[in-house]
């Protein structure tokens, strides 16, 4: 049996400064609190971000992720605590003196300036010479492939072109940290997916530190080296995308990222395996199940827990699988067909419905399982995660 905790880390083994205790973080939030009157937007939050990271802040609207970004840019002052950049306290430095640049959600392109002037704006403020500005702007225009559009005004550009102008403008001053506020929110799905990979390549190529704010979990999963999931002004979990998905530490995180089933269970026995727990539990219909935790938790024998199961990890079959564990019988009450996969909603008990996903390898007309069929759901013994109830 594999251990749940550490095995997922292999994906990012080449680059993981957060596991290195000697690495010095580029950005440090130290007990930062931000209040607007009585409303607490950021609550005593501490966070380290390392150089060359592509860091994603993820959470529902109003969770404080945009406030975090605005604190870093300097548009908002913090109430308590401090923010360090490269070891230097920048809490009270105005935005125009911070080596931090931002790409805005609305792009915020200056409508009265053309593409070149927009990109060169920051360099002009620094008092760079005309020749220097021209060279750097040309370089950036090459980078984002806008050679044909240099003399156009923002209103003469399409959404995707504007997005690239905004990106080039925020890169112009070679900031130590680039903030991206929902940078792809205004693009359509195809273009967004393509641009995500462009952003990743760019970040790697330039060796810069990026921080992205998004509410789109797929976007965060795709681009980020680490994701911070936020809720009500607090960090719920900071981990690599794989860890966030495979080893969420709470029901909130598991539920926020992707689809998940929660099934109630009672703990029978616990075994310690390195720094995780392996649990044997019983469901309310006396089915025996296995579950793992991602760290040593306070779960004890006899506790009620949530069994967290991703739909794609559950198999649906008409025949009863072998063995006496990790399987459930039920009736198909709904099928969600999205082309490549179908999600089967299977009723296990009167008030328990489990979602299971199946890749559509057969044509739709040859579908083997249909509405009202009796089916068996089963999963591998390391598929289920135990979460504190």
């Amino acid at each position, binding site marked *: 049996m594999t251990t749940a905790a550490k095995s997922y880390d292999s994906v990012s083994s080449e680059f993981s400064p957060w596991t290195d205790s000697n690495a010095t973080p580029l950005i440090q939030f130290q007990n930062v609190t931000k209040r607007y009157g009585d409303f607490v937007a950021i609550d005593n939050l501490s966070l380290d971000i390392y150089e060359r990271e592509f860091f994603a802040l993820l959470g529902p609207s109003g969770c404080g992720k945009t406030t975090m970004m605005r604190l870093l840019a300097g548009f908002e002052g913090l109430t308590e605590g401090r923010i360090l950049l490269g070891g230097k306290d920048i809490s009270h430095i105005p*935005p*125009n003196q911070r080596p*931090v640049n*931002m790409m805005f959600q609305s792009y915020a392109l*200056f409508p*009265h300036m053309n593409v070149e002037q927009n990109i060169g704006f920051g360099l002009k*403020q620094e008092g760079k010479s005309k020749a220097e500005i021209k060279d750097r702007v040309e370089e950036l225009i090459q980078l984002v492939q806008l050679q044909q559009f240099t003399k156009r005004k923002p209103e003469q550009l399409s959404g995707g072109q504007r997005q690239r102008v905004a990106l080039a403008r925020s890169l112009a001053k070679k900031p130590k940290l680039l903030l991206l506020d929902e940078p792809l929110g205004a693009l359509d799905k195809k273009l967004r997916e393509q641009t995500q990979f462009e952003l990743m390549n760019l970040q790697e190529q330039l060796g810069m530190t990026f921080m992205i704010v998004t509410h789109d979990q797929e976007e965060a999963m795709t681009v980020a080296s680490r994701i911070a999931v936020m809720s009500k002004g607090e960090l719920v979990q900071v981990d690599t995308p794989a860890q966030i998905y495979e080893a969420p530490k709470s029901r909130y995180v598991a539920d926020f990222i992707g689809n998940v089933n929660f099934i109630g269970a009672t703990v029978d026995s616990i075994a310690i395996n390195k720094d995780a727990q392996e649990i044997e539990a019983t469901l309310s219909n006396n089915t025996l199940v296995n579950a793992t935790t991602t760290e040593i938790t306070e779960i004890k024998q006899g506790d009620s827990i949530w069994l967290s199961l991703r739909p794609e990890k559950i198999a649906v079959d008409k025949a009863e699988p072998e063995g006496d564990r990790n399987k459930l019988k039920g009736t198909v009450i709904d099928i969600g067909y999205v082309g490549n996969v179908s999600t089967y909603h299977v009723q296990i008990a009167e008030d328990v419905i489990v979602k299971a996903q199946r890749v559509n390898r057969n044509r739709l007309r040859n579908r083997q399982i249909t509405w009202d069929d009796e089916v068996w759901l089963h999963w591998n013994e390391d598929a289920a995660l135990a979460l504190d109830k």
Partner: protein
Amino acid sequence: MKVTRFTWFNATSLTLGFAFLYLPILLLVIFSFNESKLVTVWGGFSTKWYQQLWENSVYLDAALVTLKIAVVSSTMAAILGTVSALVLHRAGRFRGRTLFSGMIYAPLVMPEVITGLSLLLLFVAAGVAKGFWTISLAHITFSMCYVTVVVSSRLVTFDRSLEEAALDLGCTPFTAFLQVTLPVIAPSVISGWLLAFTLSMDDLVIASFTTGPGGTTLPIQLYSAIRRGVSPEINAISSILVGVVTIAVVIAAISSHQAERRRARNEHLANS
């Protein structure tokens, strides 16, 4: 859509409507070319009243004074009005904000007679010599709020992140205003300025309260001339004003038409 056909009813109402609007102006223009000194009796075509007007320095001087006052007061009103619009829009909820914004808009609804009278009392009490500067000041106070209204309505749709982007890229708040905010809101400041300019140009009531030596504006001059009887000379000067306004309106129409075409072209470019 169905094309409305010609009917006698439509033709008559159209004619009557336009006649009601433009007949007085047309008569005024026609009689400005009247040979006879009598305003209502046609005595043949002549341009002598225009010549007389050109030689009569009283009207030219008054026109010049009016123009100077209009330029000074509308420029000051544009600056102050823009500043107050920015403050109202930006300062958030400071103490007395509602009172302040209410007071800014008060001159819009205040009867002109009251504004004029109160300013007269103020100038007398302060012992200020009335004339050019008192009229200018009076015009600034009442036209400033119009600028505020125009600029405020623009600021509602102004994307604050433009300013933040400027700060982010190294501007101080002041240079961000000069390089980004002002150019973007400039059209509304200019239309506010134009509004203040026209208001100042044709104001009679407030000007007559606050006028003094060296402060005789064209409306005041015309009004006092009319009290001595309407002369064809007044018809002539009014015709010139009508001509100037017509040209201005035509230019405005053409430029807005061009702006619309430019916008359509840009949209086409962006989508191609």
